[in-house]
């Protein structure tokens, strides 16, 4: 037992807490490797993954489609306001498409996904742990990482880029609706500027790559938080909150790093 009077800046305390943090990191890295290595079990039972895609992908569709459309609306309105000052409002299509495909599509879809699906993953795993279902599985020699966590992980990783692509496509349609139909930008210029300025691999491909990486990050954070949550009601609620905060911050930080790597010339 450590003495209660010791200050948290005491060298022994710092050493103790940094050792704990290191152990947490190591545990997380080990879990990540085990998730990344799904083994043949998942290939033999793809049903587990498709059920998760259904749960996380299909049920997230409504929020993704609606917010994508509205982000497109707003982009077109704001973009038009700025562009028409410089007499180049026909570049609106390019502005909407590039900002959606490169940044907003992957990032906002990832933030929404963290809130919509990440939290439910954490809460589900945390409650399974609280109800000792995971221990029960281990008693039956069923590996909960393989049976419960891995399908959820891969379901989220598959669903995330699809959702981001749907978000971007809906945003471009929304931008078209406001820019061309409502404001009256020339439709031909809208699409042709977009087509001459957007590159398939450099822009669309890197956007997809971003969303795959975001999917990996979000689902890993959500699963880890659920898996290490205190098996109490407070513990599960804390883990759920932490999932949203950590996943959102990770997505934004990763986005900066990825953008710097991909688009800096």
């Amino acid at each position, binding site marked *: 037992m450590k003495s209660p009077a010791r200050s948290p800046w005491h060298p022994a305390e710092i050493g103790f807490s940094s050792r704990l943090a290191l152990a947490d990191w190591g545990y997380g890295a080990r879990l990540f490797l085990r998730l990344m290595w799904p083994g043949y079990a998942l290939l033999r039972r*793809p*049903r587990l993954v*498709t*059920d998760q*895609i*259904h749960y996380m*992908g*299909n049920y997230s*569709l409504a929020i993704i489609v609606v917010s994508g459309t509205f982000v497109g609306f707003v982009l077109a309105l704001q973009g038009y306001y700025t562009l028409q000052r*410089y*007499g*180049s409002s026909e570049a609106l299509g390019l502005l909407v*498409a590039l900002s959606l*495909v490169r940044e907003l599509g992957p990032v906002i879809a990832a933030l929404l996904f963290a809130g919509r699906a990440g939290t439910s993953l954490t809460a589900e795993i945390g409650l399974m742990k609280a109800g000792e279902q995971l221990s029960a599985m281990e008693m039956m020699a069923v590996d909960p990482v393989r049976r419960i966590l891995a399908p959820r992980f891969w379901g989220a990783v598959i*669903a995330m*880029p*699809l*959702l981001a*692509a*749907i978000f*971007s*496509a*809906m945003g*471009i349609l929304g931008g078209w609706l406001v820019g061309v139909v409502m404001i009256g930008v020339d439709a031909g210029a809208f*699409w042709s500027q*977009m*087509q*001459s300025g*957007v*590159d*398939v691999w450099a*822009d*669309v491909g890197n956007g*997809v790559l971003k969303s795959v990486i975001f999917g990996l990050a979000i689902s890993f954070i959500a699963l880890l938080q659920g898996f290490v949550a205190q098996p109490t009601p407070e513990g599960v609620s804390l883990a759920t909150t932490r999932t949203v905060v950590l996943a959102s911050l990770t997505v934004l930080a990763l986005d900066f790093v990825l953008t710097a790597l991909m688009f800096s010339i």
Partner: protein
Amino acid sequence: MERSKNDVWVGLFVLLGVLALVFLALKSANLLSFQWATTYQVSARFDNIGGLKPKAPVKASGVVVGHIDTIRFDDKSYQAQVMLRMDQRYAFPKDSTLKILTSGLLGEQYIGIEAGAEAVNLVEGDTISQTQSAVVLENLISQFLYSKAADGPANGSSK
């Protein structure tokens, strides 16, 4: 493998995602536009290409008839060598003229092609010799100033 009622919805979701990707690739990035039309390649040399970029359109009377393939600097003639991919549907005489133009005041630069009078048409690998460089604002201003200076005093005194 057992079937479940979720299958069709998962399939629909994946289909929707793939459709969105295809939409992004085709409609916004125009992936297939170059491969669809058969093209022939011609080259041209410019003294100065200004801000011309690869993939910029080649237009005749404002209609897109081709795209710029590559731009490189030729250190033998000290000129820019521009390769053009022209749409096979459109034929132009061998003595056609190329101009680097700008769409609008601040717009993108593109190449305008004006048909010549010769009976023989351009074919794959030809070189267009009559070209007009991009207008460089600094040169234009200095020309203007020189011509102003040349006939300056007479005009100035008459005012």
